[in-house]
């Protein structure tokens, strides 16, 4: 089976969905030159009407994408986590609310591809991992692929979904390779990964490690270290945060009795906080030790290479957390 990078997977999903459905088009900043790597060659293939370079107007073009989606189109919008703040009014006041507010009349099939850069010396304005903010915003589906296979399959599901989807593309996973089947190798001829179904990355018996987005790789790296010490870890990747497959997490905790959550977001009101709350409320009697959260420090991202690495989760921090719950 061929291996592909995360960016290749996103590019393939985009091309396949645009070929399948004429109402799908892409818009964003600098798409035609593929500044962020996932839209190379698109304009030659599909033309300028379907690959739109926008002005630097996130609030304006987020809203335009939403408006177009109300009238039969299926936009894929490319942007960056930090620019979500600029378009927040349209995203939240309109995107998340129109359907409910209008009693179900609106369908908003927009996929926002949100590049999540961090851990690369870009300082506080270009290092946001802000998906938890949108977990606190009813009406938006939140997709966090941790690898190329999921990136392709979840992206294709997002484009076909009739609600606003934010797909967070984890910056530290972009060049990672995963086996991604070609369509002719698949029984249905295409790769679709459903929302709300967690992936058990590896089975284990002594501790459950839930990883979010890039946190999954830290969990995998930590599990190797733990395995060498004879500790068996089960790794769960929820893949989507809204909807969240809490049953798979609770089931795993029922088996292992211990939970560590690895989340690149800032720890206060993070995805990890929510998962910890769910397990504390619904799986408390299965727990043999307090839940541990490995998330980013509650501080803005500093620029200096001497400081920035201190704030994020690492495999070492995950190993330490597992030792704590096993202590």
């Amino acid at each position, binding site marked *: 089976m061929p291996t592909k990078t995360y960016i290749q997977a996103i590019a393939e999903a985009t091309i396949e969905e645009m070929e399948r459905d004429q109402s799908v088009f892409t818009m964003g900043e600098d798409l035609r030159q593929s500044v962020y790597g996932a839209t190379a060659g698109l304009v030659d293939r599909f033309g300028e009407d379907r690959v739109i370079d926008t002005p630097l107007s996130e609030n*304006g073009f*987020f809203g*335009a994408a939403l408006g177009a989606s*109300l*009238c*039969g189109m299926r936009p894929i919008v490319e942007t960056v986590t930090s620019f979500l703040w600029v378009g927040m009014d*349209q995203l939240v006041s309109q995107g998340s609310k129109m359907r409910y507010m209008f*009693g179900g009349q609106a369908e908003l099939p927009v996929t926002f591809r949100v590049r999540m850069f961090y851990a690369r010396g870009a300082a506080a304005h270009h290092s946001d991992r802000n998906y938890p903010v949108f977990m606190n915003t009813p009406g938006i589906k939140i997709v966090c692929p941790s690898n190329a296979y999921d990136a392709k399959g979840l992206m294709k599901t997002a484009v076909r*979904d*009739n609600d606003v989807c934010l797909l967070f593309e984890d910056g530290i996973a972009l060049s990672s390779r995963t086996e991604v089947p070609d369509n002719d190798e698949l029984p249905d001829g295409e790769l679709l990964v459903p929302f709300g179904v967690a992936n058990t990355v590896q089975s284990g018996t002594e501790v459950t490690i839930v990883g979010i987005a890039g946190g999954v790789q830290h969990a995998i790296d930590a599990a190797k270290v733990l395995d060498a010490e004879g500790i068996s870890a089960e790794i769960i990747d929820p893949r989507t945060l809204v909807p969240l497959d809490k049953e798979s997490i609770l089931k795993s905790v029922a088996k292992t009795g211990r939970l560590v959550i690895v989340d690149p977001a800032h720890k206060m009101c993070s995805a990890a906080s929510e998962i910890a709350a769910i397990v504390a409320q619904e799986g408390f009697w299965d727990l043999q030790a307090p839940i541990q959260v490995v998330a980013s420090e509650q501080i803005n991202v500093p620029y200096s290479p001497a400081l920035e690495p201190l704030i994020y989760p690492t495999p070492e921090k995950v190993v330490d957390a597992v030792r704590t719950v096993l202590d």
Partner: protein
Amino acid sequence: MTLDKQQLEEMYRRMCRIRYFEEAVIEIHSSGELIGPAHPYIGEEAVAVGACAALRDSDRIAGNHRSHGHPIAKGGDVNRAMAEILGKSGGYCKGKGGSMHLADFSIGILGESGIVASSVPIATGAALAAKLGKQDFVSLVFFGDGASNQGACHESMNMAALWDLPVIFMCENNGYAITTSYKNSVSVDHVSDRASAYGMPGVLVDGQDAIAVHEATSEAVRRARAGEGPTLIEAMTYRYEDHSLGLDRIRKSEYRSQDEVDEAMKRDPLPIHRQAMIAHGFATEAECDAIEAEVHAEIDGAVEFARNSPFPEPGELYDDMWATPV
């Protein structure tokens, strides 16, 4: 004049419908039956009606917080609008939206928005869908002089002009953003002066004259359908009531004088239209009286419909959240 008797009478009917609807809302609010805020459109009826008279059912409109008049002008159902304002299950949005979020997608009403100017990008996007999908409709967005200062307006107008989108930006300049006057908030004499900055026509029109608004909108619609791009129209109008029902603090303030209000009310859009029809021989006094009586009965019926409509059941709380179920 391009309008015929039937069209002119229908315009008058819809202006009366808005006026009497709003009067009923005020009455219901003062009785305590209506809890939330509501922003009366009284005094501005000619703008919505003149503009919508130039549109087809398939054309899209989007509104704002002061938006009972826009869907009514587009042909919306006053029963369902009134029921929505009372939070009833028979309302346009089954009680989920209320006064600031009336919508009827079946006749192109893409919904109102409580965040000032936030419908402007939505309408621009609807026009983008018309262009990209080669669909035969235009979109028109109603916004105020206050909204004209939002970045969303600037961004949308730039994109619309850049891409020649079939959208009409209809600014209802009623002189005030709540209590802040136009002269204290806009740097140019007219919002329509800003059109030249985007390379689109800017048209100033008397917003108390529905026929004049219709003419200006018709030309903008013609341009839009011909692929010639957007137009910014500024309709000069006046808000008779204060900003919102229930905001007594504003009601008592002195941001505008009674003399100013009295002076503005001398140019009431309903008699202006009625007299124009009669003067040009399109209708008689008796015919106009009959329309008024019919609409009064219609609004009485709407209030009754709304009162009789049940409230939504608690079990409906989580309905209408997702289009693709989770």
